[in-house]
């Protein structure tokens, strides 16, 4: 794994292993918060912050943390950053916080964050871990933004809160409901598989 270049470490999160489409991890927030572009984008940024910070600390502590208690240690580190995100969001972007609601605290048990800590940061140096966190976080943000945009445009006729079509537009409300999230995600997975190799 160490033969991969630093650039690849970053870009793999953007296409080759883009979460959640390639990894198919962290689907709970993916489906729940992508009713609109801005919630998806906000969730992505929150997760990126947590991912980068936890990757840094996990990588720094990889030689100190005994392997038997590594998971509790990871959880403490991740939970700390999640609470920081939660407090900062409450203080500065309260309306977004209200809409994301329970899904911010749930980042603690997000498979992507824990997965990267366990599978990557606990084995790699700090530089690579930061790049990995950024790449994965950015990939997740892009995925959620795209998914949110599609659902918002078709389901509500809006994008980031702006009306796109005239009054004659009949919103396809199925898209902003829960089943629509599954269908939309499935279609995107299919399209990605169509273009991707393997």
């Amino acid at each position: 794994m160490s033969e991969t270049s630093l650039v690849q470490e970053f870009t793999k999160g953007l296409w080759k292993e883009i979460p959640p489409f390639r990894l198919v991890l962290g689907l709970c927030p993916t489906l729940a918060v992508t009713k609109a572009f801005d919630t998806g984008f906000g969730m992505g940024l929150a997760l990126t912050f947590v991912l980068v910070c936890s990757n840094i600390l996990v990588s720094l502590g990889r030689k100190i943390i005994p392997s038997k208690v590594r998971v509790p240690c990871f959880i403490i580190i991740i939970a700390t950053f999640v609470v920081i995100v939660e407090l900062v969001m409450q203080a500065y972007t309260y309306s977004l916080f209200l809409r994301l609601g329970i899904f911010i605290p749930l980042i603690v048990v997000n498979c992507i964050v824990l997965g990267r800590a366990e599978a990557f940061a606990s084995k790699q140096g700090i530089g690579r871990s930061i790049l990995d966190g950024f790449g994965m976080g950015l990939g997740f943000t892009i995925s959620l933004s795209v998914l949110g945009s599609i659902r918002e445009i078709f389901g509500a006729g809006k994008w980031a809160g702006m009306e796109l079509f005239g009054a004659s537009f009949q919103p396809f409300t199925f898209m902003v409901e829960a089943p629509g999230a599954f269908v939309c995600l499935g279609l995107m997975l299919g399209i990605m598989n169509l273009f991707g190799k393997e």
Partner: protein
Amino acid sequence: MRDIIRMIVVLAVLGALSGGGLAFVKKNTEEKIEYQVLKFVKGPAILEIMAGCSNDPIVDRIKIKDGEIERDFYVGVFNGKPNAVAYETMGKGFGGPMGVMVGVNLDTDELIGMGVTSPFAETPGLGARAKTEESFKNSFKGLSINKPVKVKTEGGGVDAISGATITSKGVCAAVTGSSEFYNKLKPQIIEKAAAFAK
């Protein structure tokens, strides 16, 4: 044995660092969060009551101890004089308790407005119109807080919402009931509000 000690030390240090960090962040965001919560939860009702004031009533709030309870008063400055306050009181509606925001002119003891806040679980289309029905809300204006506030059928001055007698009477009772602590704390309110004069 050494292993166990190492695990305990690592976990304890990590936990302590996390706790310390979170306490620091919480301390620094506490004030901001309180403001945001007030702005988004109670703010709409306060700002509607204080329409036309020259300050931000949510920033210019005073806390006064009433026995065991601490009450918040939001001061509105009109024409440079801090002569209006809004405060929240609890009433009983059809669907359970409801928060009622009362605005009073400190000079004349007349009501300047009324708005409902949370909790608010009135029936949509009936009691829930207490939030939006202008004729209901406006009929509170100019009534004296020192006389019992009643709906018109009981000889008072409030236009009850048709189909929502219990909600209407509940709001009236809440306003009437609040006059007790309002009058008790009035000297303190005036004294503290004077600081906001421009």
